């Protein structure tokens, strides 16, 4: 099977991110947590390739050290939201009736909750730790997945091949898993890759509720958020994590698209 451009570019980008994360576990140019008040807000130079932040910490080191955490948190959150969302969405859309109504009532209730409140609630329940953010954001995003999946299922379940599956004597659950779900892939793929980006960005928003990755450990999200007051005076502070997020997202999208094409046998020869 020939490698297409998208796959190559996407794979390279993600590869770089993973490689960076792996490298950071053994080596970074400086200690990413090392405060150096004499070298505050230094622009990029030979000494500090990406400059330093308001505490004189090396931005490059922090970018590297933050890669792993950022990606892991985003990955876990998306996985949580998608798994929960797809299961409930498919069930609601496929079974319909009262199950659907009850699920949707709860779902809509959850949807109406702002992330901050959910996060504060989660904080109380699970305490302040890294996984709190996964839970909080996962809970915030899962209802959207439920809605989108349910919508698609509503239309897919009317297709004749689902009827055919029932005709064969396949159980409803099997039909859901085998025939309905694969044909809902497209919107789920889009939503989950987009969500990946949202999590990378909003992870920092929650860090001030005690839910984020505990400071001073860097993540791209909290680096970006912290760069805000220096948007004009120390542009590099925001640009570095911003570009990292953008390229990771682009990589994931490209890779996701080509993966989807590959998973979709209809596209194999196109």
């Amino acid at each position, binding site marked *: 099977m020939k490698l*297409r*451009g*998208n796959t190559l570019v996407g794979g390279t980008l993600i590869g770089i991110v993973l490689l960076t994360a792996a490298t950071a576990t053994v080596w970074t140019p400086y200690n990413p947590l090392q405060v150096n008040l004499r070298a505050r807000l230094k622009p990029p130079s030979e000494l500090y390739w990406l400059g330093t932040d308001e505490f004189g910490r090396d931005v490059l080191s922090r970018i590297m050290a933050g890669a792993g955490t950022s990606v892991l948190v985003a990955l876990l959150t998306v996985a949580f939201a998608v798994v929960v969302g797809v299961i409930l969405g498919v069930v609601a859309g496929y079974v*319909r009736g009262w199950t659907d*109504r009850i699920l*949707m*009532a*709860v779902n*809509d*209730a959850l*949807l*109406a*909750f*702002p*992330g*901050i*409140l959910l996060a*504060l*609630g989660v*904080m*109380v329940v699970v305490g302040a730790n890294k996984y709190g953010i996964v839970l909080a954001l996962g809970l915030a995003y899962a209802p*959207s997945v439920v*809605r*989108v999946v*349910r*919508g*698609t299922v*509503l*239309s897919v379940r*009317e297709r004749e091949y689902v009827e055919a599956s029932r005709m064969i004597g396949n159980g409803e659950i099997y039909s859901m898993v085998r025939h309905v779900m694969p044909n809902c892939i*497209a*919107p789920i*793929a*889009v*939503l989950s*890759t*987009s969500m990946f*980006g*949202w999590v*990378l*960005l909003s992870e920092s928003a929650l860090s001030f509720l005690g839910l984020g990755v505990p400071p001073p450990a860097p993540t791209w999200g909290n680096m*970006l*958020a912290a760069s*805000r007051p220096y*948007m*004009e005076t120390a542009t590099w502070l*925001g640009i570095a994590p*911003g570009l990292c*997020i*953008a390229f990771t*997202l*682009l990589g994931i*999208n*490209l890779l996701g*698209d080509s993966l*989807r094409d590959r998973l979709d046998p*209809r596209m194999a020869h196109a």
Partner: protein
Amino acid sequence: MLSYVLRRLAFTIPTLLLVAMAVFTLVRLIPGDPVQLMLGDAADPAQVTEMRRALGLEEPLPVQFVLWLGKVAVGDLGKSISNGLPVLPLMIERFQVSGLIVLVAVFFAALLAVPAGLLAAWRQNQPLDLAIVAGATMLLSIPTFWLGLLLLLLFGLKLGWLPVVGYVPFSENFGQALLYIVLPIVTLTMVEIGVMTRMSRAAAIDVLRLDYVTHARAKGLPERRVLMRHVLPNAFAPTWTLIGLILGHLLGGIAVLETVFTLPGLGRLLVDSIFARDYPVVQGCLLFTALIYVLVNLVVDLCYPLFDPRVQAE
């Protein structure tokens, strides 16, 4: 149809009740106390208790809940702890700001994103597609505050075309109001374009390979018409669901945007109230957004058969 709508509306009641109950418990469960915040580091314990009693916060929770619910049932959402104003008019006033921005922005976003997605799907894996996908992805990875501030600095400060802070209601001065609201709308539109583009692209790719598209082409329809008339309606369903979601989400939460552009909107009210532990306002806002949410989704569901007539409205 009418009975269906009524039935659906009846189903909003359990949802709202659920929201009411959850919000009520949650806001009281999380640490922090409005009175404490008001009195700050100089709080005198006795005074705290007294003020809490005056606000009705010293009653047992179930009693508070029932009292509150009873008032809500007759349309009284209570008064803000922060500034003593009745919650309902406060919310409605703020909602007019957020609602307008969100509706217009989502409308424009859809107007731009859906055709862009179609175009990308149509030229799948070609340079145009790659450009659109890359653009959408970039937009997805720019935080609202960043983009908003950038636009603010560019158009407000560098070019001086638009005012930097503030808000004027449309009822007061239409032209002025427009100036104040342009940037927030543009920002929000750009932020929402990303995901919508990708959603419509994905759906369109699926539809484009169906036979009726080929058949439409066999009729000699121009590609534009094939895309707009034959692909779009069938590919629109997931995007439509998404629009419903975005609308619902945003109506309750464009706090960041409202902060950057200094707009007195509902999102800021809600977030400020959460941080101030202003229970009545939080409860009211959430009940309100939940209601809006349910209504938006009802409309979304009602419109569903328009795109896929095979799906019956139950």
